[in-house]
């Protein structure tokens, strides 16, 4: 009994499971040694948390679509569009901070509905479909803003209430992100919905034949990702104190990096909340730390790239990283179904092949 307990915990806490946590601790130690005065203080921690909360939220937004085997590449653009919508309403309709937040969220939900309609209604591959809708969203944002930043009423009460309110220096975005992480943790790992979501992501045909409503769950995922991205966009706009169409799209790559790096943590191959949070903290600590210790301005980009390859590579030695990505492609909704015996829509060659295997 004690032996099995031991392997249980060494498995859970070993570098294969939570390698990113080890790297994170190592980074903190290294930066603290290099620059004990500039790095090793609460101010740096606050900076990492406050600056990377929004990135974390966009990363979390990706969890549901990715877990159900589809991409949402429009998260950055949705964040941008929602931020502009909030800023535009604040500048032109009402200076009430709540009006800005509501406008941003409503626009995000609409964006999610459009994504669902394109990907699930029209059956366009999610990679292409959300790339396209994202392009349209950001075009709308640019048009509405006249390609300018909107600062009127954004840098006032709105910024104060949404981005600067804090407890012990930790601002509202940090708590929003933590709340989202808890919700997604329960939704993905404790609920029937989450079980079905993972089942779709791993094997859409098995899920379908097990009575899982594939499109319903994927639609819910796209709606959730757009809503969370929208909230992230509103928060980012408040942090900057101005709405700019350029804000949102910059979150796309780090968010994806965090989600994929996070999938290698804790759950070995499943996209999950806490893995994503650790991944964001790792990226944030590395980036902030490099700048604090006086690294050149390009060093964070190098760090992001190296850390991604190292972390995913380390875990994919188990065969999980690449396998996961391949299975995503295979199961994108409009991709041809590879299970010949179950799909008569295929060529007669394939079906003869299946007949042959059956014979």
């Amino acid at each position, binding site marked *: 009994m004690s032996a099995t307990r031991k392997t249980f915990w060494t498995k859970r806490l070993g570098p294969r499971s939570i390698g990113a946590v080890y790297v994170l601790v190592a980074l903190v130690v290294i930066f603290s040694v290099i620059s004990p005065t500039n790095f090793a203080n609460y101010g740096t921690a606050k900076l990492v948390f406050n600056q990377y909360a929004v990135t974390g939220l966009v990363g979390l937004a990706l969890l549901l679509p990715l877990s159900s085997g589809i991409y949402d590449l429009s998260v950055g653009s949705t964040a941008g569009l929602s931020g502009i919508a909030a800023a535009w309403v604040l500048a032109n309709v009402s200076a009430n901070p709540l009006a800005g937040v509501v406008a941003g969220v409503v626009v995000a939900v609409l964006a999610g509905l459009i994504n669902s309609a394109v990907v699930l209604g029209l059956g366009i591959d999610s990679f292409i479909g959300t790339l396209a809708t994202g392009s349209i969203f950001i075009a709308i944002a640019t048009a509405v803003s006249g390609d300018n930043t909107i600062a009127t009423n954004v840098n006032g009460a709105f910024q104060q209430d949404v981005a600067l309110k804090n407890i012990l220096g930790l601002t509202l975005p940090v708590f929003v992100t933590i709340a989202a992480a808890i919700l997604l943790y*329960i939704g993905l790992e*404790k*609920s*029937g*919905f989450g*079980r*079905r979501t*993972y*089942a779709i992501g*791993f*094997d859409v*045909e*098995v*899920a*379908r*034949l*097990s*009575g*899982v*409503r594939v499109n319903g769950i994927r639609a819910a995922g796209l709606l959730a990702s757009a809503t969370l991205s929208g909230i992230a966009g509103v928060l980012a706009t408040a942090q900057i104190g101005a709405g700019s169409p350029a804000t949102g799209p910059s979150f796309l790559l780090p968010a994806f990096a965090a989600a994929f790096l996070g999938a290698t943590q804790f759950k070995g*191959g*499943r996209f999950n909340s806490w893995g994503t949070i650790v991944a964001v903290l790792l990226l944030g600590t590395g980036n902030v730390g490099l700048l604090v210790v006086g690294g050149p301005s390009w060093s964070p980009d190098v760090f992001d790239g190296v850390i991604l390859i190292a972390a995913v590579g380390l875990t994919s030695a188990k065969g999980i990283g690449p396998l996961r990505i391949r299975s995503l492609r295979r199961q994108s909704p409009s991709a041809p179904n590879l*299970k010949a*015996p*179950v*799909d*008569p*829509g295929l*060529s*007669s*060659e*394939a*079906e*003869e*092949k*299946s*007949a*042959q*295997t*059956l*014979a």
Partner: protein
Amino acid sequence: MKLELRDIGMRFDNRPVLRDVCICFEEGTVHGLVGHNGSGKSTLIKIAAGYYVPDSGAMLLDDETVPLGSPAVCYQNGLRFVHQDLGLVRQFSALENFGLAAGYDRTWIRTVNWPAQRRRLASALAMLETDLPFDRPVSEFTAVERTLLAIARAIAPGVDGGTARFLMLDEPTTALEGPETERLFSVIRTLASQRVGILYVSHQLDDVLNMTQIVTVLRDGKITATLESAEATHEQLVSAMLGAEAGQVLTRPTAHRPKRKSTHDLDGSPAVEVRGLTAHRIRNVSFSIAKGECVGAVGLSGSGREQLVYALAGAIPATVEEIRVNGVELSGLDPRACLDHRIALVPGNRLAGSLVNEFTIRENLTLGSLDTLTGFGDIVNAAEERRRTESWIERFAILPADPNYRCIHLSGGNKQKVILAKWLAIDPVLMLIDEPTAGVDVGAASSMLGTLRSLADDGHSLLITTSELSDVLPIADRILVFNRGSLVSIVGSGDPEWSETGILNAMSKAPDSADNRTKILELHVGGKEKN
């Protein structure tokens, strides 16, 4: 010109698949080759094609030895093959597909000489006295057009000469409908009249008798008969295929002999009634299954029996006039509706499509019955889930007995148990099972059949589709026989046809359309009244 395979012997894993096979093909002759699954037909063809090197024996073309084990040499010597899956790329045009196997003519700068390719395809089609559109993608072709393209590609002269002398066709009619088959046959006759020797492999014994001049029967890797087709009969072929076992009522130990409760014949309404099922190759099929009845569905490959369970489970597009489960009519055939009416599908290809490999045993076991485990806020009751998982693991002796073990690492037999348990967890009214013993060893197969029978005895209705009669003869109460998309015969375990021979006869006889169908209809209606 003649092609001779002499004393061919071949073993796989120390198990003989071919033993001292001598066979001789003459030019201009259509030579039939028949035999049961696993009798060695495909191995023989693959040896002739140069894909396998036999342990012993030789191949001679006009008494000159042809080196074995080289597809290129075989091709140069004019031995050409059309395999069952044809090997066409759907998105490519006929002309592009042609080049894939027949090689490319080149221009002086080594690019493909398309006009020359066209001429070569045209000459091959002229040889077949048929015509095909060159530039349309193969996906737009009918089944017979694809077969003809594959044949044209095979018999075309090679880029640097080399004419086709022998053509081997493996199950060419599997995908074809009645009139299409005729078009193929006329092409085969045309080819034979041009002195090409043809080896025709098929399960459709009537076609073989019609088409060929000589027919060779293989059983367990040995030739058991070589007959003049004109004089041979259907029954002769079947008994040569089955050998000494022919005529026996059961060919397997009767360990799982149906212990059918007589009440099942008589009590109330059937558990499942299907009327007018049409899907893919299946045309307008009707039948019913009683509670606790185990029904087998058999047929040659391409007969439609492969699709039957998938169609009923809503896994493939299908239409049905009416389907009732315990008297309640289903609105349509889709997996969710099936789950709601407690119809379970155990797919045939166990390595893919039936379990989420990355999931644990626990997660797979409860995926179908998740609704009964979730409470407030859709939260899964973890304790109850674990309890149920452990009880299934115990009942089926799943190894390792760890609920959190990932299914990807399970052995085939244990995967099978997990799949069964997953579906039993919904307490199914009807279990649809495809190929229950495919890919498992004899011992596991036998215990699987025992399990299935006991499920039927517990009151679950079973519908088993299989290519192995030995899967259903020992355990089924009735067998549905399919041919060319139709339900051609229903054999009950008490009927005189209840034997391997009787059912093979029914399977391999071409359905003589109208007449036979009325008979079936009567048979079906009769069966229904009995229920």
